[in-house]
């Protein structure tokens, strides 16, 4: 027996699926969201909820990030910042060597041409921004546009807003394949339990986008990139901004499969301080690595010496959806009419979600996209025959 039909099935109830559902529903489409697990149960619940421009140089990802940032502010204005726990906290990037400072300065100068506000901070002014920071660091840059949301709350709130517009959300429903008509177009999505008739499917399965894409007939090269985060005991406000060391930007941009770590420290509304960030490509291996935890803790203490006196409550880990060229996969899959992808946002999915959702909605309705989607075309990985 089939379920009621809809214009679009969105596979994945993480932040990207939630944004696609919301902007799709707002554009007048009937939407069904399916997730094999729960709302925000994948990478959305394993991250820090960052909306960053500070770690991006000029290019299509920065354009997407800036568009997305302003949409996050619109969403907060429309639904209330509390619905997302949106905080315009700003980011402070700190160099840990003179060489690091000069490359940060030139990186920041380039960012300015792309629309990023970066204010140089001299060594002796760093502690005006962050009084608990270690003494004697060479300098840094303050990025007032960086923000944070509570990511699972944000996904749930976007889905609630989508439901208010008529969308349906079904959790515990794993997609196993697609039904296609004689012309090859998708006509329905199959799950282990039933089928959902639909004219279009959006693969918003994040790190699992390759598997879901393959089941729907068009895979994409999304790979897991593991990261650990340490969580301290609840503290008063001890860190005002997102604070990270300048080598983080190089780590993010690297394609190395081996372990890379850089200090990333920030507070949360609940009082805990989150400490990252590690990157390594080890498949979906969830094994706890004491070595990674040790490195993260040591690097954080070098930035914030008081952390040595603070207890860790727990750690968590997750898998970023990594694409070989570090750009998300957003757009139509020309191998399978009716299939679109919206995945592979690596560590930036929270920040990039609203603009991704709006772009997908534009592609679905045929409205002129408000942003050039060419750089995110899923077909860039496929050698297309004439």
């Amino acid at each position, binding site marked *: 027996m089939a379920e009621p039909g809809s214009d679009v099935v969105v596979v994945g109830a993480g932040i990207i699926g939630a944004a696609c559902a919301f902007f799709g529903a707002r554009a007048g489409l009937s939407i069904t969201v399916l997730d094999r697990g729960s709302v925000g149960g994948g990478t959305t619940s394993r991250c820090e909820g960052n909306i960053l421009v500070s770690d991006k140089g000029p290019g299509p990802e920065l354009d997407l990030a800036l568009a997305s940032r302003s949409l996050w502010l619109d969403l907060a204005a429309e639904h209330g910042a509390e619905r997302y726990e949106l905080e315009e906290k700003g980011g402070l990037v700190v160099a840990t060597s003179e060489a690091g400072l000069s490359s940060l300065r030139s990186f920041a100068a380039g960012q300015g041409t792309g629309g990023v506000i970066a204010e140089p901070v001299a060594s002796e002014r760093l502690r005006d921004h*962050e*009084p*608990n920071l270690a003494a004697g660091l060479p300098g840094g840059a303050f990025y007032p546009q960086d923000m944070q949301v509570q990511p699972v709350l944000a996904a749930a709130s976007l889905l609630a807003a989508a439901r208010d517009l008529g969308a349906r959300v079904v959790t515990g429903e794993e997609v196993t394949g697609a039904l296609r008509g004689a012309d090859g177009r998708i006509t329905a999505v199959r799950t282990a339990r039933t089928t959902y008739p639909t004219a279009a499917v959006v693969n918003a399965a994040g790190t699992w986008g390759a598997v879901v894409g393959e089941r729907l007939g068009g895979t994409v090269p999304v790979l897991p990139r593991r990261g650990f985060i340490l969580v301290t*005991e*609840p503290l*008063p406000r*001890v860190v005002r901004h997102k604070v990270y060391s300048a080598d983080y930007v190089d780590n993010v941009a690297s394609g190395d499969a081996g372990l890379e770590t850089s200090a990333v420290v920030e507070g949360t509304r609940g*009082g805990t301080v989150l400490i990252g960030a590690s990157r390594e490509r080890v498949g979906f291996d969830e094994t706890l690595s004491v070595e990674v935890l040790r490195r993260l803790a040591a690097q954080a203490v070098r930035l914030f010496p008081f952390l040595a006196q*603070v207890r860790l*409550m727990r750690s968590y880990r997750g898998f970023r959806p990594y694409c070989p060229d570090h750009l998300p996969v957003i757009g139509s899959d020309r191998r399978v009419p009716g299939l679109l992808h919206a995945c592979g946002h690596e560590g930036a999915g929270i920040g990039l979600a609203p603009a991704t959702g709006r772009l997908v909605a534009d592609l679905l309705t045929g409205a002129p996209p408000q942003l050039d989607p060419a750089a995110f075309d899923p077909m860039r990985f496929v050698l297309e025959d004439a």
Partner: protein
Amino acid sequence: MTEQSFTFDGRPVAFRSGQSLGAALTAAGVRSWRTTRADGRPRGLFCGIGVCFDCLLVVDGRPNERACLQPAAAGMQVESQEGTGHGHLEV
């Protein structure tokens, strides 16, 4: 068996060897020893197995010890805790 004790907010509390601070306090009729950070609500043992971090108190000057995991020891100075126990770090 000789009676052993620690102090809780200055008054003696008896315990048996191997008992946690949380167990000894509860046996002595003390049900709460921490206030919540936002609203000042009373808290004591909740999960009792080290997971929930609800039963925090100050042991010999160290804040945020879990009463359910910390074995009682003779002469320990245990105090109730208000807030995070790290107020001096606030910026």
